[in-house]
Structures are given as structure tokens and as C-alpha cells.
């Protein structure tokens, strides 16, 4: 049973620089685990397995929660699975402008994106977060990670996946979770994909960008898994932030790695 968003995972190689960037967007550190056991079951989801890794969870009111993952270095190209859309009063001064066409989103997908966001975003490369992302101007809204675009070559399959994960669409094409708790809210925009240089369709937890969407779940040890997560999947137990948790990692046929975080204490 999916309860809400746990976090969007950002791969990074300089966790302090990435943290400073997010603090600039109003985020605060929720917890920090510098030498957390990296369960061996995660090996298939990584390019290069390390026995320990560093995770740091950050949250900001009105924005999607983020977890920074440092697996000892970034490997390969940016994950095309999720492209973050940040919101703030102005773009960061050190961001490098990119064309929207550089993203793995087709022209049709960009139209859907603009429709869901209510405006056209701008694209930038962020050296602190080591990824290319999108940005929209905040008009009185909370700054931070507002939504993620979900490029897909099979919109029908992606929509089915989101439905099984208990996301619901609004009229504009923005999919969100049915929760009144802002901290558990996630906003996703499925968009038609295209191949783009510098982006990989094979998401890895130690790749730049966002390869993984983590959701809070209950009863993952006894309730049936959504059909879309029935394929490649591993589960293991791990204390996270002092709470025993059952972690399930699943790689659907398309899209990001889905992590289910089930706190058992």
C-alpha cells in the first residue's frame, strides 16, 4: 500500500555542494547517514557497488522531499527517468543555460509539460547537483522541487504504472498522490520521450540526475505488489534514521527505479 512520497533520489559526488544548493531553495536536512550500509541486494541497481554509501535527506515545506545519494562517485550519463522541475524567484547564478530540445523530451512531450506546468520551463545545467534540470518562476509559491517530468516511450504503460502507484491525474496532466500531507505529496508529469545526448534510459542509483522515486509504503511484506513492480525486484531490511525499515527496490519496464520504504517500527 503506497502512502505517499518518501523522496526523489539525486545522485551526487559532492554531497556538501549539493546540500548547499538545496538549502538555497529552502531545504533543511532531516537526517544524515554518512556511512550507511549499502545492502548487497542493491548491486543490480548500481553501476559500481560500494559496501557503504552516504545518504542525506532534506525537506522543505511545499516542495518534494529529496535524498542525496553519494555512492563514492557518479558513473555514466544522467538518468533520463526523471527530470526535476525546480521553482524559485530566479534561476541560480551559476546555472548554465540549456535548450529544452537538449532534454530527452519530444516536441509533443514539451507541449504536455508546458500544459501541466501552466507555463514553459527553462532548462539549465546545475554544476552543484551535477545534472540538467528545469526551472519555472515561483509566483508566490514555495521554492524547491516542484515536480518531475517523466519521459516515456510508452505513455500508456507509464500511466498504468502511475495508477498502480496510486497517483491520479488532474485536467492539465499533472499526476499527484491522494494525500492531504504536503510532505508526502509528489507531482509527476508523464511526457513523450526522445533520445538525447548525455542521457541514459537505463537508470542507476549512482548515475547523475534522478534515477529513483522512493515512496512510503505499508505492508510490503504481505500485501500484493502492484503489477508494474512484479518484474525485477529485491527487498531487504535496514535501519534508516533510527527506524527499522523494509526496503523494496523495483525496476519497472520503463521509467525510474521505484523504491518502497516501509517503516516496520
Amino acid at each position, binding site marked *: 500500500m503506497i*502512502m505517499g512520497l518518501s523522496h526523489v533520489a539525486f545522485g551526487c559526488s559532492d554531497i556538501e555542494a549539493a546540500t548547499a544548493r538545496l538549502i538555497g531553495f529552502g531545504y533543511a536536512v532531516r537526517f544524515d547517514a554518512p556511512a550507511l550500509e549499502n545492502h548487497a541486494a542493491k548491486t543490480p541497481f548500481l553501476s559500481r557497488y560500494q559496501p557503504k554509501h552516504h545518504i542525506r535527506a532534506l525537506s522543505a515545506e511545499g516542495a518534494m522531499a529529496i535524498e542525496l545519494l553519494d555512492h563514492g562517485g557518479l558513473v555514466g550519463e544522467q538518468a533520463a527517468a526523471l527530470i526535476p522541475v525546480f521553482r524559485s524567484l530566479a534561476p541560480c547564478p551559476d546555472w548554465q543555460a540549456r535548450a529544452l530540445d537538449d532534454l530527452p523530451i519530444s516536441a509533443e512531450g514539451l507541449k504536455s509539460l508546458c500544459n501541466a506546468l501552466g507555463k514553459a520551463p527553462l532548462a539549465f545545467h546545475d554544476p552543484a547537483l551535477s545534472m540538467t534540470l528545469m526551472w519555472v518562476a515561483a509566483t508566490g509559491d514555495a521554492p524547491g522541487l516542484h515536480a518531475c517530468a517523466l519521459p516515456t516511450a510508452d505513455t500508456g504503460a507509464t500511466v498504468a504504472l502511475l495508477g498502480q502507484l496510486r497517483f491520479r491525474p488532474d485536467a492539465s496532466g499533472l499526476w499527484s498522490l*491522494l*494525500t*492531504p*500531507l504536503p*510532505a508526502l505529496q509528489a507531482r509527476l508529469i508523464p511526457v513523450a520521450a526522445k533520445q538525447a545526448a548525455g542521457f541514459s534510459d537505463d537508470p542507476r542509483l549512482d548515475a547523475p540526475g534522478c534515477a529513483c522515486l522512493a515512496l512510503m509504503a505499508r505492508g510490503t511484506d504481505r500485501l500484493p505488489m502492484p503489477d508494474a513492480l512484479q518484474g525485477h525486484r529485491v527487498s531487504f531490511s535496514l535501519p534508516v534514521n533510527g527506524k527499522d525499515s523494509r526496503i523494496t527496490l523495483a525496476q519497472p519496464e520503463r521509467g525510474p527505479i521505484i523504491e518502497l520504504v516501509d*517503516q516496520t517500527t
Partner: protein
Amino acid sequence: MPDLIAAFFDRLSRIERPVLTDISGGDRRDVAGADLADHLDRLAAMLRRKAGACRGDRVVAVFDNTLESALTLLAAMRHGMTLALQPVGTAPDDLKRLQARIDARAVINATRQGVSGATTIRLQDLATETPVKPATVPARTPFTITFTSGSTGVPKGIVHGAESFLTCAEAFNRQTGITGHDRFLNVMPMFYMAGIFNGILAPLAASAPVVIAEGFSTATAMRFWPTVATEAISALWLSPTMLSLVMRLDRTDKTVPPAMRRLFVGTGAMTAAAAEQFHRTYGLPPLQSYGLSELLYISVDRAEAPNFGTVGYPLDDVVLTCGAEDPLSIASPHAFLGYLVDGALQPHDGPFLTSDLAQVSESGALYVLGRADDIILRGGVNVNPVDLETALAPVMGGRPFCVIGQRDATLGQKVVLVTEGPGLVPAAFSEAQRVIRDHPGRAQLDAAAHVEKLPVGPTGKIRRAALRAMLAGGGA
């Protein structure tokens, strides 16, 4: 007794769609039935951590029409806590006094307004709480403490267990045909019995979703029907005052939205004339009910064959006893646990003697004739003020008014017509006197008085005892 509370939440947990929707603020907020238990168990964790409140504790809870209030109510039910409900705007000192009087663990605030000294319930904080697993709540565990108006003395705390709400809701839903296909709008004030029982617990007991809207007011009356239409509401509760405002302020084409099928009226007496006018205008019969804070629902009218002027037919297993001179006595399986007196529960047992004079017709319909303590004894003749008000309504032109008795040296009590705002012109009062003279019985109107504002309860019902006290103190 089976574990009614666990069964209630188990039924809701099977519902994937929203069972609570809050449209009272700027943001629309939904809670799916499947997620409800998780939210309530997190809220229980928050109450324990921030307010020190655990199972068996009493808590003073400031409520308004918000999702936070609904979730706090349900969390208390699921985790065996007792809530003493207070309206938003209650002075912090009064809350503290109440906390001391009932030996409550904490004061919590489930409203959007700040309350000094209270622990605020914020949904955004629930995300970081670890859910507390609920234990079985023993039968007859106190769940709510609501207070009488206090217009006739010190307010009394009425203590209910969850079972009385759940069994009464089941009987009501069965009699009125309310099911999980219905969708309720709750505009009743949620610090008050009608707001938590009629508006939240009873619909949810039928697995019917509830849309929580801002408490009813003149401002919200203007957008009442559009809200009913937009939210595809099929059932709701109004007080007679609210019903009257809905009619008077309606600027739509008087077409009831297609989903709407049950309009229940409670917390006060609706005149037969008002019910008929509403029915004629909208084609939907307003269904009068009768209930008491101590006993919950007693009776409700039938949608298929409404009997305006009555308060409907008693629920199953509710036994009524009344005579021409004796107030109504009621034996109900849904009765309260007792009154809270000096912080201790004074258990209630047996039939409950009301202050209402009533009759039961041959068909079984219940007529409430008025409160025995409101009856005016004028020159040896009993005068029922509700009866006079019904007769006067057509000539009062929608103006708020009330008939009360005041002490009189010659008559014992005189009959006084009290209006709100400026006093009646002599011709209008003469016309009112003529109506009463022509009315069956031997009543007469002796005097007119006026007050700036008639004292009313949370649902608009006039507080006669408070009005009598006002006039006796020279408030006119």
C-alpha cells in the same frame, strides 16, 4: 459486544477513493479510506509526543470545520481518547479552566487559528511521525464530552462512548437508506454534536464519503447550491435556520442538483409551512429529525412519504412514553454514558426524561409540541409558544422573532412577542394580536419587545431561556 470501532475502521480501509475531503480552506485536501488508519495512527503518535495524550486520557479539543478536526475525532475514537469539544474563539483562560475542571491531559487546537497554550495539530507534521498501532478500545470507553448550552444553568458535560454513535448511526442509515453510494456535505459546526455525528461519524458508518465545508453562514448560503452541485452531494444536514437562509438567499434557478436526494433537518423544529414551501420550491422534501445530545437520533421523517409538522418516526429499538401533561420519556440503546459532574462520570441508566411535550400519532409519527419548561402559564391557561410562532410566521415576513413568557403580577405570566432589530410598529403588532386571537385556543399576545440580536445556538436555534434572562435584565 463485537469490536464496533475496529469494524468501522476496517470497512473504511477497504475504500480506495477519498472518504474525507476538506474544501473549507484554500486547498482541497483528500484522505482515501485506505490511507485513513495510517493518518490516524500518526496523529495518535503526534498527540502522545506533543501533548502527552494517550489512551484513556481526556483532551480539550478546539474544533472547527477542518480535516484536522475530523482526523483528530477519528484518532481519538480509534485510540481510546476522550475529547471535550470547544469552538474556535474560546478564550485561552476558559480552555485552561475547562482543562482543570475535567482533569484533561492537554488542550489541542485542530483549527486554522492560533490558540495560545494549545498544541496545534498540523497535517504537514504527520509525515515524520511513526504510526502507533491501536489496541482494542474497551466498550463504554468515554469518547466525547459535549456541553449543553448552559442557558438554564451551568453547562453539563454529556459523555458518549463510541458505541452509541456507531449503533445509532447504523439504525439511522438503515431507516433512511443512506449507503456508501451517498456523498455528504458537512456544513454543521464541528465543535457541536451535529457537526461530528451527523456530519462525520454517521455518514462514515455507512461508508459514505464526507465533504467538509466551511461552517454555514450567510456568506456560504449564497454558494450553497453551487457547492452541492460541484461536489455531487447526495445528502446533507441543515438546521431550520440554515434551511430558511438557503431559501431566502438562493439566486439560482431553484433546481436541485441531480445527485442530491436527502436533505435532513435537525437541531431544531422546522415549521410545516417552511417544509412545504421548500418542498414546493425545490421538489425535495426536507426531512425533519428529532434528537438529543444525550440520546443522539430519536426519529426521522420518511423521504418517500414525508409527514411535515412531525419529527418523523422513531428509530428501531427506541421506545417513547408520553402523555398529555407529561414530558416525553425515551428509552434508547444509543444513550450517553452519563454526565460529567465535578470531573467524574455520573452514570446514566434507564429511560431519559426530556423537557419536551410530545404526541405519537396512530401511524407512529412523533409530534414535538414544545419544551415543557417553555410553556407559558397565562392566567391558568397553558400557551405553547411554538404553536403561536407557527401561526405568526406568515405575517412576520421572514423577520426573526420569538414568543416567550414573562412574569406578570396579574396573569402570572404574560405572552410577549420579541423581534430582532427595531420594534414592531403598532399596526404590525395589532395584526399579530389578531392572528393569535383568531388562532384556535385561548392564547393572546400581551406585549411586544425587541432586542438587537436574538440569542442563538451554533445552528441558529433561538435560546429562549437566554432571551428570557436578557429581557428580565432589561436587555430590550
